[in-house]
């Protein structure tokens, strides 16, 4: 173990909870992570001491609030190696994907153009582009997934070959399969066919778990969400090249994002403010900045190492369990700690209920990846996902629950 997990766990209030007399075993961090005390303290500091609105105040409280808010921008930029002027705060990763879909894709792509997506995307990084394609008449192309849960890069190369792909959207880490995609390689492949193509990456499942450096990745734009990276709900970000932001049309409009407004129309503020209309998530930004510091203090390299080590233990144990089929890559070098699997003869919903009864929290269902599920021929899976507060102690309750579920639903002869 890379961390002293037992000590670390004490930082996370909800993990102190007992369910039916048992210790809570939280294995759903891919849906949302737990929040450490330091993040709650940062939000309290704002609410209890500096409660006011940002940017337009000339009084002390408002300056403090503005510092907290803008400090989060610097923190995010530092974490992913970006220019703070390229950090646009949104309410979640979904809005971040919509921001680029409305601000760039819908303004730039039309009949004759194509957008490269993949079959493994979360709905957040697929539907906004499908919706745009319907309205604007461009073509959607999907990189297929291989048997072992990887993007088929040969197929991808063919899909971009005609040079008509002007925008590519794909995930850094799959929330369903765990697969870590080779972002630099895909970005290069896209740009080889069309040097002006924009590469948009969904980093939602990467930022909380891996070192991320946008320049090394070769991404023009990158979506993330606060609540999966120890931060609060209600905040996410699109991190983009400021030059790309300059070329984007405003999306949400209103106060703060304008330079001037007359009855005839408005002119826009500088980036990134141009994309932040109205009162932003101030307390949430204060919390997110603390979450970034927390992550930095853990060290993203160590977070990844912990997850690789623990993931290997979980994968090995699950694969050795009767009736369990693990989806996605089996080698931790190629994947993150979100592990989806099926249990023979038991519907995931029933697995979830049996586990819940034992205080084990997992996610069941389609994980907002319906096209991928269809491709894999499953309706739903069970997903156990790991984070820094998990360790080997969390494995036994999971395995016991799975065998209880099998005993309970044995003989049904159906999946």
């Amino acid at each position, binding site marked *: 173990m890379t961390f002293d997990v037992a000590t670390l766990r004490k930082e996370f209030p909800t993990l102190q909870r007992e369910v039916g007399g048992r210790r809570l075993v939280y294995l759903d961090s891919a849906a949302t992570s737990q929040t450490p005390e330091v993040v709650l303290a940062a939000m309290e500091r704002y609410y209890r001491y500096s409660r006011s609105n940002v940017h337009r105040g000339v009084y002390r409280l408002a300056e403090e609030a503005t510092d907290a808010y803008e400090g989060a921008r610097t923190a995010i930029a530092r974490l992913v190696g970006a220019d703070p002027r390229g950090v646009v705060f949104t309410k979640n990763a979904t809005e971040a994907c919509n921001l680029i879909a409305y601000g760039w894709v819908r303004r730039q792509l039309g009949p004759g153009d194509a957008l490269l997506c993949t079959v493994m995307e979360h709905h957040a990084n697929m539907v906004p582009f499908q919706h745009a394609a319907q309205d604007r008449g461009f073509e959607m192309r999907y990189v297929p997934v291989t048997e072992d849960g990887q993007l088929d890069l040969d197929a991808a190369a063919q899909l971009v070959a005609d040079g008509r792909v002007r925008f590519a959207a794909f995930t850094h880490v799959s929330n369903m399969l765990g697969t870590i995609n080779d972002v630099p390689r895909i970005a290069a492949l896209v740009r080889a066919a069309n040097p002006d193509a924009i590469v948009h990456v969904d980093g939602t499942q990467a930022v909380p778990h891996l070192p991320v450096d946008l320049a090394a990745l070769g991404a023009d734009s990158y979506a993330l969400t606060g609540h999966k990276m120890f931060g609060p709900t209600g905040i996410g970000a699109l991190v983009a090249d400021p030059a790309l932001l300059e070329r984007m049309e405003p999306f949400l409009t209103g106060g703060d994002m304008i330079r001037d407004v007359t009855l005839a129309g408005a002119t826009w503020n500088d980036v990134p403010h141009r994309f932040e209309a109205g009162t932003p998530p101030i307390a949430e930004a204060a919390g997110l900045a603390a979450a970034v510091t927390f992550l930095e203090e853990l060290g993203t390299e160590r977070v990844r190492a912990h997850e690789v080590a623990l993931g290997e233990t979980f994968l090995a144990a699950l694969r050795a369990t009767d009736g369990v089929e693990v989806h996605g890559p089996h080698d931790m070098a190629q994947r993150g700690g979100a592990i989806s699997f099926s249990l023979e003869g038991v*519907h995931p919903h*029933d697995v979830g*209920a049996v586990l819940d*009864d034992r205080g084990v929290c997992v996610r069941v*269902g*389609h994980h907002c990846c319906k096209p991928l*599920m269809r491709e894999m021929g499953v*309706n739903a899976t069970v997903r156990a996902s790991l984070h820094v507060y998990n360790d080997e102690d969390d494995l036994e309750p999971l395995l016991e629950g799975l065998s209880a579920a099998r005993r309970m639903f044995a*003989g*049904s002869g159906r999946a």
Partner: protein
Amino acid sequence: MSELEDLYQEIILDHYRSPRNRAPGLAGEDAHVHHSNPLCGDEMDLRVRIRDGVLDGLAFDGEGCSISQASASAMSVAVLGRPVDDVLELVEQFRLMMHGEAPDRADDLGDGMVFEGVARFPVRVKCALLGWMALRDAVDTFRRGEEANDVTHEGDHE
């Protein structure tokens, strides 16, 4: 494990393991609806045959958790052979039971009664209701004069 045993009573597990009236088709079918619960990925096909105002045939098929499948199975036994108005009344009784109201016609709900405890598990209520809502919709579809209809219905927020 008593809470869990409450949810998964033996009768429920029995309906799940040996479903009644589960079939991929129905001879002389009058209406066919497809209901899904997008949040769990449950899917259900329900077919009905209605003769002289009586629910004369019913077949359900699909994929789903034990609660949704067992509930549809128990339902099929309770409603088959009843006048459709009566069927709709039983559907409503079941729906209210899922919201915590004790039903007047407990006897007529038959094995459906064992799902009473599901009301205490909010996320499972929609599973238990899936077949019943599909049935109501199938009758409505038939009454709208759409003999062979295919309706996709949101099972989540009834």
